[in-house]
């Protein structure tokens, strides 16, 4: 089957076609790039680096209802995610898609998380290859990804100049191609090879890296090392690194009741960097300071998660480095781990 291409002139049409689904694309709110549902193709902003908040929020919303109830009534009304319908995320970066595949391992570990998994099933991911690295702090190749990475994606678009090369990677991807049959054309024979060359070039443009081999095994032994105090001294204990991280998935569960007695149990993103994250009702806190919490976060991503799921829970998107207000830099921390 021939590989397809989408002429840039037809992007508006294609997005219009896709807006019969729940279409999520990068858009601008003031000068901030966010992923949001768009009805008008004009809203899509595809010529972007990367969004501040990753598109993980589409399959794992920041706040979502688990079930509803009425105080005094024993019936619990489970939230039906199917109502949200088929969703297409158009134009996300390979790192963000790979992150969803990584997090999916946890959400299907022994117990199936029906909310995440159903959304994942209903969502088609159309990726946009990174011809240029979105940021100087990208390091996806160091952690198993790449600027033209395909893991987690259903379709990959590559900007070839006047058109996008469209490569379908899964059955869901093929289905979406069929939806866009009127907008797609067959790509030229040499395009795939050309894209491979562009991928290698793009990887060469990524300037930061870390040798992760051995880090998962080394971390537990560094428990009492004074590097943790040093790297966490400036930390504000906010949630920027965790909320903007595409692989972070920790959540809180809270019950909310309105005045008339109708309520819901919902879950919302939580951050292991917040002090109350592991606070017991008795007042005891096993991770009382930023030092313990920083050590836990890095250990979780680079040691605990790989020990269980064989993959480092970091995709090298660089958001935490770019947006940490005090310039705490995960690569800087990992270099100290390697040197310790």
């Amino acid at each position, binding site marked *: 089957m021939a590989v397809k291409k989408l002429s840039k002139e037809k992007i508006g049409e294609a997005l219009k076609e896709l807006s019969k689904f729940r279409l999520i694309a990068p858009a601008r709110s003031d000068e901030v790039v966010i992923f949001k549902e768009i009805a008008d193709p004009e809203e899509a902003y595809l010529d972007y680096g990367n969004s501040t908040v990753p598109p993980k929020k589409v399959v794992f919303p920041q706040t979502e209802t688990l079930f509803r109830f009425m105080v005094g009534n024993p019936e619990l009304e489970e939230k039906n995610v199917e109502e949200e319908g088929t969703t297409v995320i158009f134009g996300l970066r390979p790192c963000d898609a790979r992150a969803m595949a990584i997090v999916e391992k946890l959400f299907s570990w022994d117990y199936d998380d029906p909310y995440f998994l159903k959304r994942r099933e209903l969502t088609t991911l159309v990726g946009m290859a990174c011809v240029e690295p979105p940021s100087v702090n990208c390091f996806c190749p160091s952690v198993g990804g790449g600027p033209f990475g395909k893991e987690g994606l259903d379709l990959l678009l590559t900007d070839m100049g006047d058109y996008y090369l469209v490569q379908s990677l899964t059955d869901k991807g093929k289905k979406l191609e069929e939806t866009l049959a009127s907008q797609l054309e067959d790509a030229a024979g040499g395009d795939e090879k050309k894209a491979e060359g562009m991928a290698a070039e793009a990887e060469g443009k990524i300037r930061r890296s870390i040798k992760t081999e051995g880090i998962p095994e080394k971390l537990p032994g560094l428990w009492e090392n004074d590097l943790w105090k040093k790297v966490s001294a400036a930390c504000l204990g906010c949630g920027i690194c965790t909320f903007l991280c595409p692989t972070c998935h920790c959540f809180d569960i809270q019950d909310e009741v309105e005045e008339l007695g109708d309520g819901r149990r*919902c879950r919302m993103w939580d951050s292991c960097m917040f002090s109350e994250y592991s606070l017991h009702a008795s007042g005891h806190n096993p991770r009382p300071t930023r030092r313990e919490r920083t050590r836990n976060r890095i250990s979780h991503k680079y040691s605990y998660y790989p020990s269980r799921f064989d993959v480092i829970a970091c995709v090298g998107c660089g958001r935490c480095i770019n947006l940490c207000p005090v310039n705490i830099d995960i690569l800087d921390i990992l270099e100290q781990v390697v040197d310790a």
Partner: protein
Amino acid sequence: MVDINKLREIAAEVISRDDVRELIGYRPGTYGFRARPAFVTGPEEVDRLIFTPACVNNLATYITLEEKLPVPRGQEPDTRKVAVMVKGCDSRALVQQMEEKAYGRDQVVVLGIPCTGVVDMARVEARFPGVLELGEIALEGGKFVLSFDGKVEEVPKDELLADKCARCRYPTPLVYDQLLDDEVARFADDDYSDIEALEKRSMEDKWGYWEEKFSRCIRCYSCRNVCPMCYCEDCVLDRINPTWMRRSVDISENTAFHIARAYHLAGRCIQCGECQRVCPAKIPLMELNRKFYKDVGELYDYEPGTNVEAAPLLATFSVEDREDFIL
């Protein structure tokens, strides 16, 4: 311009004192033009200290941020002082913290840095994208001089200057044990013209404006955590028992959070602008805080963070107050 050798000499002296346990200053960041906080515990570490227009962080927040752990049995508490480098705006945070009796004057050693302005790092990175190797920023002859990747670029000061600096009234620290440079005279004022323009907009307009901003809020609490005045050990917005503010993130809770925090800062916010700088969603928080500042100035003729001996405005009751009860 701060003489960097003098700064390091003074820092070495201070950290060598028996009664000082830590010195908080600035050091180069990990990429591009960034600078970051430095926590120095010995004179051998002072060589990495810097002070440039890239030193945007308000280090005063660390005085109240550091966790106070229970002292293990048999050990004495560490009562040594903390030394901190502060710009003019940052020093107001120390003054306000001391005004509120968060700690005594004798618990900090203040190294004041009269400041000629810092950059808006977002503007710098937009103007010179893709800089990875550490670059330097200096202010010379009314221009920012950026040295990076083997080249030197000069940019007129006002193009990269942080907005808060363009209206700074206190460039010289208001409290210090030592001043690391010559005093800088006030060179600007806040005319509040943008606040007044916002005030004049219709309610519908204003609500649309803030709804767009607050919808982007992800409740990372970076604004609260970076704020030197937000140091309550048990923040009312974190409480679950009772739940004053829901942890769920939606326009209603987000709006409540920002308005509540602005009210908690009324008469206390010292206008360092860190909240707005750190916000990943680029919410113009200083517009709220400046509105309160303007109102507090007009209603009570009071400026927080200017006088350690002053009584905290909204925490003080006087018989002459208009209201007939303390609430």
